[in-house]
């Protein structure tokens, strides 16, 4: 053990500098070590890291180079070292765009996806969907449906997000997974329901009536996740925009209610939606005062969000923004240049003589 540890230390000490001048051909030659049995997880992990680093630096791999590396990497499925396996998935995802015959790993990944090790399953699903083309989806459909409703949130999220990516190439097939996604929507885990809502909305893009039903139901339930709420506010705002009838009043009330949420992200999302709705005859004051508060925040991101949204509002409702003139004037000398520029342009647009004098 001790000698092994020393080896590793030596390798890592050189690590920082060896990354600086990595040579593609040398790294690709090193991938020959992948054929050794038993697999040395640390050495192989380090070689995989180098390959990923080169790809990330924008180094170009020819189809042949990528394919050779890809096939060498498939040998590493023999090892059960967790970190090595996860790096293998990462490499599969990166190389799947460049190499040929990548479907060779389908069975290995399907095995990991349905296996016992939770740490493999979520990542294996995502890698599998990156090598699967539209003709192959049917073969994994059953597993995907199971994974979507899995109790492990990481597995469920991985399956939902992968389905979303797949729906750009095979929309009809992914549509068949609607009932599973519906079930995932009720998950206690906030990100699972966020991902489920995202895919349901995508499936029902063209079906306005069912989107309305979905949004109406959700606005009445108590959603805690800020991400899901942000998405829901966007959907509700879109429905208000498309619909002139009385029913949209409920959506407006829902968005208004979100102004009192405890998360700044949600408050801002609601305020932004309210001031950007095309047909507002109602009271803008609560939303504007939220944005006004943001302008005085110590966080630059909040100041920018506030100033930018107010800037947009000037063209539509200059009167509503004029209440914030003083706050915007304070931002003219803001250390963040984006914020300062926005404040100046907004003040010029509102064009109050008094403020120009000052």
């Amino acid at each position, binding site marked *: *053990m001790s000698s*092994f540890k020393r080896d590793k230390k030596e390798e*890592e000490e050189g*690590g*920082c500098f060896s*990354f600086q001048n990595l040579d593609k051909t040398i790294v690709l030659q090193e991938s020959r070590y992948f054929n050794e049995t*038993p697999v040395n997880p640390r050495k192989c*992990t*380090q070689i995989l*890291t180098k390959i990923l*680093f080169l790809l*990330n*630096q*924008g180094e170009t791999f020819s189809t042949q180079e990528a394919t050779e590396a890809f096939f060498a990497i498939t040998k590493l499925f023999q090892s059960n070292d*967790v*970190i090595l396996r*996860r*790096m293998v998935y*990462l490499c599969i*995802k990166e190389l799947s765009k460049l190499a040929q015959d990548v479907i060779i790993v389908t069975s290995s990944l399907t095995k990991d996806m349905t296996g016992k090790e939770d*740490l493999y399953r*979520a990542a294996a699903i995502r890698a599998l969907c990156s090598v699967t083309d539209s003709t192959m989806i049917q073969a994994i459909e059953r597993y995907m449906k199971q994974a979507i409703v899995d109790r492990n949130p*990481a597995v469920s*999220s*991985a399956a939902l*997000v*992968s389905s*979303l*990516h797949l729906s750009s190439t095979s929309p009809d097939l992914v549509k068949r997974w609607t009932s599973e996604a519906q079930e995932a929507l009720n998950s206690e885990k906030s*990100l699972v329901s*966020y*991902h489920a809502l*995202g*895919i349901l909305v*995508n499936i029902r893009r063209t079906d306005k009536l069912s989107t309305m039903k979905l949004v109406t139901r959700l606005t009445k339930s108590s959603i805690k996740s*800020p*991400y899901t709420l942000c998405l829901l506010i*966007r*959907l509700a705002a879109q429905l208000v*925009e498309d619909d002139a009838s009385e029913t949209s009043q409920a959506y407006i009330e829902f968005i208004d209610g979100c102004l009192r949420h405890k998360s700044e*992200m949600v408050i*801002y*999302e609601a305020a*932004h*939606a309210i001031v*950007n709705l095309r047909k507002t005859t109602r009271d803008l004051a609560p939303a504007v005062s939220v944005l006004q508060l943001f302008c005085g925040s110590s966080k*630059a*991101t909040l100041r*920018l*969000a506030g100033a930018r949204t107010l*800037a*947009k*509002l*000037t*063209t539509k409702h200059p009167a509503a923004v004029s209440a914030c003139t003083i706050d915007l004037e304070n931002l003219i000398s803001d250390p*963040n*240049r*984006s914020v300062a*520029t*926005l404040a100046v342009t907004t003040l010029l647009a509102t064009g109050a003589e008094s403020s120009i004098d000052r």
Partner: protein
Amino acid sequence: MVHTNLEGSLFEPTLYIVKGMCILDNEGNRILAKYYDKDILPTPKEQKAFEKNLFNKTHRANAEIIMLDGLTCVYKSNVDLFFYVMGSSHENELLLQSVLNSLYESVSILLRRNVEKRVLMDNLDSVMLAFDEICDGGVILDSDPGSIVGRAALRGEDVPLGEQTVVQVLQSAREQLKWSLLK
């Protein structure tokens, strides 16, 4: 260049929120970068030019956020590392900020609070895994640093003994035994 498009518009209801994430060193060189939208900065050359520009505009002013080339970029730096998260200019800035916070906090835990280039390069594999756990093709996959790190750092024996849980100690003991048998 600040985009002063004064026309109001609603945010788009989509899960594709993140346009890119990157970590640069104190000379503006890329350590890790991912771009998730094929239409934005499609080639490495354009990406690196953008990163240089971004770095030049941000490395001295610690101002958290900048509008650059039609992208909203939130950022944070420490010692010799710069972390950036990019989104469309029609995006909720605070959502992007929350992704940046997850990225920074996860990396910080992985590097045991030594957020500097040398330590990061020694743990590049874990940081790559964390990148992958935070964002999948532009979709926020996880935002909880605890669970992100839980899935990115799995080498029990790298953690000082005092900080290990019973499970980790057992796991590393098992691994050490395995290694001694293999020799």
